[in-house]
Structures are given as structure tokens and as C-alpha cells.
């Protein structure tokens, strides 16, 4: 008889780690992300200097052994500021992504499951939220409640909702016509149960990749908002605010503007690389292409 041989590819989970270590983007991205997160966590326990302690004599010092990244206009240690600033950036971005996923994914999968009018209403709702870029929401909130880190979280979070709703809906719509969904329906499972058992696990990879992208965008957006003074307020250090304060002193001390900016670039780069790597690893269609 004809050998009806199973495909030669081994089960994915056995080789996942092996493949992950061979993926350069993933490895570099993961290392950067872990280092940034570790730096932020470390700042809770220890920073080289106490940043609430102002040493006016040490104002705007250049790089030295005592202050590896120099000091700012109030004599605070830049490295310590960046470490604590990482905390703020990561916290804002994580909560904002959480809001986006927590609201957007249920909405998107619900719309895909129900279709028809509910789907249409959701898509129009998406259009509506897309008309308010995060900065615009932040501006409106600030106009009423005054500036603060919470504004940034809410504004970026609101902006993330339609992004995740769209990704979840598109992913779910591509799964619904599959025959295993029909088989599950023939097994009497409700749409909600099918969504939990079959749809969500199969769009999880998609959502994870989008999550890293939105995380990176969240960090950029938070930096922009705090640069404008719409984010975290002093004395809480934030990368965007540090850049704002550096701008007026750029003639005298350009290094003030260099390091907070580099911190943003490296963090965002790490997250984007991680996202690219994850997509390569998780999306079988792209994997086959290689």
C-alpha cells in the first residue's frame, strides 16, 4: 500500500526553544527587554544616588566615574534618574496595553462571533476612537483634570482598545470559517465556549505580537506626553520630562539630552525586535516562507 506518511516536521513545542535561540531578533530583543525590566526593578531597591537629594555643587557635570552618565541641572545623577524613569515608562505602557487588551479583545472576538449589526456597530465605534489619537485624548483630559501620569495611561489605553479589537476581530474572523469550528458547533458548543476554547488559543500568538508592538508604541507615546508635560509630574523622573528639561540647556550640556533619548530608543528597539522574533516563531505561515 502507498505509504500515507505523516509530514516529517517534528512537533513545534519540542523545538520551540531551539528555534527561539536561533532567532537573532528574538534573542537580542529578549535580552534588551529583560535588562531594561531588571533595571527598573533594581531601582526599587537601589540606585547609585538618591535623586531626591539635590547637590547644587554637582550641577550639569559631565561623565565621570562618580556619575557615569553625568548630572542634571539640579545635580541629580542621570543614571539613577533613568533607572527610576524606566519604572514609570514600563508601568504606563503595561497598564495601557492591559486596558487595550482587556477591553479590545473581548469586543473584537464578540463582534466576530456575532457578526451583523453588532459587528457593524463595533467597527464604527473603532472608527470613532481612531479619530482621537492618544495625544488628543490626553490633551482633553489634561484640560479638565490637570496633568498627571494617570492621564497618560488612560489616553494611551483608550487608543489601544480599537487596535486590539481590530486585530482580535480579524484573527477571529479568519478562524470562524474553519471546519473545526463547524465540528465544535455540531458538538453543541455555544459561541462563547467556542471563542474561549478554539478562537482565543489560535489568535493568542497574533495578540502577543501586537502586544509587544503596542508596548513599544506606548513607551514612545508616554515619552511624548511627558515631554509635553502631560505625563508624570515632577519630582517623579520620566524620560520624556528629562528631555524637556535638557532642551533649554543643550548649548551648555548636550549630554543631558543624549542618555534619556538613548534609553527610549534602546527600550523600544528591544521590544520591537522581540515582537519581530516572536512573529517569526509563532506565525507558521511566515516560518514556512524562510
Amino acid at each position, binding site marked *: *500500500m*502507498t505509504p*500515507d*506518511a*505523516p*509530514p516529517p*516536521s517534528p*512537533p513545534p513545542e519540542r523545538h520551540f526553544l531551539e528555534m527561539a535561540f536561533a532567532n537573532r531578533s528574538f534573542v537580542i530583543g529578549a535580552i534588551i527587554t529583560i535588562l531594561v525590566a531588571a533595571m527598573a526593578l533594581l531601582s526599587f531597591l537601589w540606585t547609585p544616588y538618591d535623586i531626591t537629594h539635590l547637590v547644587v555643587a554637582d550641577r550639569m557635570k559631565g561623565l565621570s566615574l562618580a556619575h557615569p552618565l553625568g548630572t542634571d541641572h539640579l545635580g541629580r545623577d542621570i543614571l539613577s534618574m533613568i533607572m527610576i524613569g524606566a519604572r514609570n515608562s514600563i508601568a504606563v505602557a503595561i497598564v495601557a496595553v492591559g486596558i487595550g487588551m482587556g477591553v479590545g479583545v473581548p469586543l473584537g472576538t464578540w463582534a466576530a462571533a456575532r457578526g451583523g449589526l453588532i459587528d457593524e456597530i463595533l467597527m464604527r465605534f473603532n472608527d470613532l476612537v481612531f479619530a482621537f489619537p492618544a495625544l488628543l485624548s490626553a490633551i482633553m483630559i489634561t484640560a479638565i483634570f490637570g496633568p498627571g501620569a494617570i492621564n497618560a495611561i488612560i489616553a494611551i489605553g483608550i487608543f489601544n482598545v480599537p487596535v486590539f479589537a481590530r486585530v482580535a476581530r480579524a484573527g477571529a474572523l479568519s478562524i470562524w470559517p*474553519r*471546519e*473545526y469550528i*463547524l*465540528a*465544535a*458547533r*455540531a*458538538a*453543541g*458548543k*455555544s459561541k462563547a465556549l467556542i471563542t474561549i*476554547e*478554539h478562537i482565543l*488559543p*489560535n489568535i493568542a500568538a497574533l495578540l502577543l505580537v501586537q502586544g509587544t508592538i503596542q508596548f513599544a508604541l506606548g513607551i514612545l507615546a508616554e515619552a511624548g506626553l511627558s515631554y509635553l508635560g502631560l505625563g508624570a509630574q515632577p519630582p517623579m523622573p520620566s524620560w520624556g520630562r528629562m528631555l524637556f528639561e535638557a532642551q533649554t540647556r543643550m548649548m551648555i550640556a548636550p549630554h543631558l539630552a543624549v542618555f534619556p533619548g538613548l534609553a527610549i530608543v534602546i527600550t523600544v528597539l528591544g521590544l520591537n525586535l522581540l515582537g519581530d522574533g516572536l512573529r517569526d516563531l509563532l506565525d507558521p505561515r511566515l516560518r514556512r516562507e524562510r
Partner: protein
Amino acid sequence: MSLLEIENLSLSIAGHPVLRDIDLRIAPGEVLGVVGESGSGKSMTALTVMQLLPELARAKGRVTFDGVDILAAPEEAMCRLRGDDLGMVFQEPMTALNPVKTIGEQVAEGIRWHTGANRPDAEARARAILDRVGLPEAKFPLSRFPHELSGGQRQRVVIAIACALKPKLLIADEPTTALDVVLQAQILDLLRDLVAENRMGLMLISHDLAVVADMADRVSVMRNGAVMESGPTVGVLSEQKHPYTRQLAEASTHVPARARSQEKAEKQEPQPLLSVSGVTRDYPGRRKGLFAKPEPFRAVDNVSFSLAPGHAVALVGRSGCGKSTLARMILALDRPTAGEIRLNGETLGGRSEYELRHARRNMQVVFQDPYGSFNPRHRVERLVAEPLHLLDRKPTAAQRRECVAEALESVGLNAGDMHKYPHEFSGGQRQRISIARAIITRPKLIVADEPVSALDVSIRAQVLDLFADLNQRLDLTYLFITHDLTVARAITDDVMVMHEGRIVESGPTATVLQNPKSEAARALVAAAPDLERAVATRQRATGD
């Protein structure tokens, strides 16, 4: 002298050997049929001749076309050959045309490129060839876009592109596999005529022995990247000297043994298992204008029939005739616009999902695609156990495993397979898993939507055997949805022919297929490829 000569061709892709020592010849004006199951290397042989192989492919050996050494030819020389002396038609017409360009542009493009003709001249020639392939100007102006055409029409456009400059060799890679039988017969006729008119050589690649027997002068049988046997069609297919050729031929006409069909017919059942009465399904149609009310499209039109317990019935028809829509309504996955469906006397309409549980336990489904019918992230145990959700009392983990083991064993798999993932199985094994899932609740009715269409012939024979076996052992009733009359012939007692939403003819399978009365049934029977008939016709033709 040969038009195409392939000698000792070996091919590897990214280091994996794909072809081994292939030898093929095509004389000018000759039709060579290349047959084989999936993975036999048919398509890769064709792509080697076209030099359209994937980037990592490395070919060794000699391929000579019309005096040109193809493997050594530079890309510019190949560009001059392709589309001019060498044309190719692909399997999937739905994706073979550029969606953003008109069919006129796509046909004229190659003409302009090769002949240097100006736009009006090229368009005139494009018009002529489109007329020739059966797309007349009145209905198919050059300004049509691919999405406005059906699959069969798109395949005609692809053929027009390939034949616009009357190539010396046309390569057709499974050109009709994605089409229904009636369209298949039409497209094959068109290819046959075009080849004869222009004295083109044709390399016809197919998995279907009957199609090849019908079309080809000579046949090459391929398997696992090597040529098993080559020779004149009549000799190869009537004598079947090579064991693999014989195995293929037997598998493609395989009829499973079904002892009980006789006695069953005698035993009259008082109540039908399934009764469908006056069922209609409308879909909202496309809007014609901004304010015009859309005309609904009637997919299923006032269909009534009943199914006796233990019977196997085929619902046959062309693609788009409404048979899958009907199947979905029977499975209560879609609601009829009008009419009633009863299972065991219990009506399915207007029930909540909870109330349907009893009915659902008694009817399960097997789908066509052995790759798409499983959630890739679940293990076989969970997949097969899914319908147990319908039981009133939730089984314990041990009971569940026992049920799954039993179901797997009754479809010829091992109980130990339940811990594997679906991608660890072959297509035929997956279809067995699919059947195991369908029988786990001990249903009375199984609806099978094209259950063997995606399988290679030898696997398909085994799966048909399994269906026949389960029919007897578990006293199952089958409703087979298929466009393939050989499946209907092999395994069903009765057949219903569906055409444009209506059932136009029904009766015992042998009677209907031997002596079809309705026009739709006659067209289906006439178009269905038949190996014995084709070989006999060819023998008579060569014998004269």
C-alpha cells in the same frame, strides 16, 4: 525529434531530494499525461521545465526544449521562451489572476512583451483568443476584472494567457482539480481542441487516471520523485503491468464490500430517520443600486426527502448547487428560511442550542479537509472527545479516555494515538480521527461533506472501506455530499441529484447513474471521468 526531452533530472530543494533520475519525452503535438499521487514530484518537474522553481532548488541532469538547454539557459532566454513557446496553466484559478488588473490587460501583456505589438493590436489578439476559449465579447469584455468571473471562467482566462502566442508546449498542472466535473469536462475539451488546432505539445499533470486516459497519447506514472512506468496510454493502463500502476487503477475504481444493502432494502422501516420537507434557504443578495432593494439569492429551493435508517444516500451536484447549504441546515448549523427538518421525528427548527443537544448527539459530521478540521493546538484526545459535550452527564476523565480509545480503535487507529497532536498524522489518518470524533456519541446519522475529495486515491479507497465497515458495524445512516460520482457509486444505496437549489432526480444509485433522466443528472454522468470507458474508447480508436 522530441520537443521536450528530460534526461536524468534530479532536483533537491534546500538539500532535500525531490526528484530522482526523471526521464520524460514529449514529441511535437503529443499529449503526455503525468500521473501520480501528492508528493510524487509532478509539479516540480513542470516547474523545472519552466525554470520557476523556488529559490533554494538545485537541478541536475539535462532538460532540452526545442534545442535549448533549459538548465543552462540564462534568465533572459527563459523570459523569451516562457509565454511564447512555453505556456503554463495552474491548478488554482481563483488566485492565478492579478486581482487589480483587467483580464484584457493580463492577456495582452504577454502578447505585447513578446511580439512588440502596440496596444490596439495586442488587444485585438487578446480579444480573439478570449473568444476562442469561450469568453465572448458581449459577456466578457476586456475590461472585466478577475473577481467578476467564476472559477471556470478564470481558468479559461489563464488558458488564454498561456495559449495566446500558440506555444509549442503547454504545461497544464492539475488544471481541473479545483473545478466540478462538468466544468472539468468543458476545460479538458477546450485544451484538447487547442492542442489539436495548433499542434501543440501538452504535458497534462493529474492525479486522476481517468482524466489522463481520456486525454493523453502517452502516460508517465510517477511516485516519490521517480518515474515508475512510461509508455503509450492504452498499453500502460489496459495491461497495468507495473504493480504501482495496477494499484492506482484498482484504488481509483475501488468499491467497498457492503453485504447488507440487499436485505436492508427488503426490511421496510416504519419511520424515516431524517425527514426534510419543503426546506428553502434564501441569502440576502447583492445590492444593485443605492436604493434598490436587494434581490435575495435562493440557495436551496423547496427541498423534501426522507432517509431510512441504515441507508447510505449520496447528494450529488455541481459546485454551488446548494448541497452544502442543505447539509448545514440538516446539521442545524444554519436555519432554513422555510420548511421543516425532523430527526427521529423531533423537529430541529426554532430550538435553542440546549434543546438541540439530544438531536445533535444523534447526528455528527465529517468534513472534506483533513487539515482544517482540527484545532491544531489540541491533542487528539480532546479533539475526539469534543462531542461528549452533548452528554447530559459529564463523563469523568477516565470514562472520557475510554470512549476516545474505543472510537479510535474502531476507526483503525491505536488508543495511544490520543496523546498526539493532529499534525503528527497523515491526511488519511486525520480523516480517520475525524470519523472517530463523529462516532463517539454513537450517532445514528453521519453527514459527510466531500469526505474523501482531498485524499489520494489509495488512501481514499481505505477510507471508503472504513465508511462501509462502520455502516454495518454501528448501523449508521449516511448522507454523503459529493460532486464525485465514483464515491456515490462505491458506497451509497440511493442517490439524489441537486441542481440550482432543487432536487431534480432521485432513486437507487445504480439506476440513476446508469440511466439518468433529468438533464442535470445526464450532464453529471456524461462529464464524470471513467477509467474503463476512457481506455476502451482509446483502444477502439487505436485498433481501427
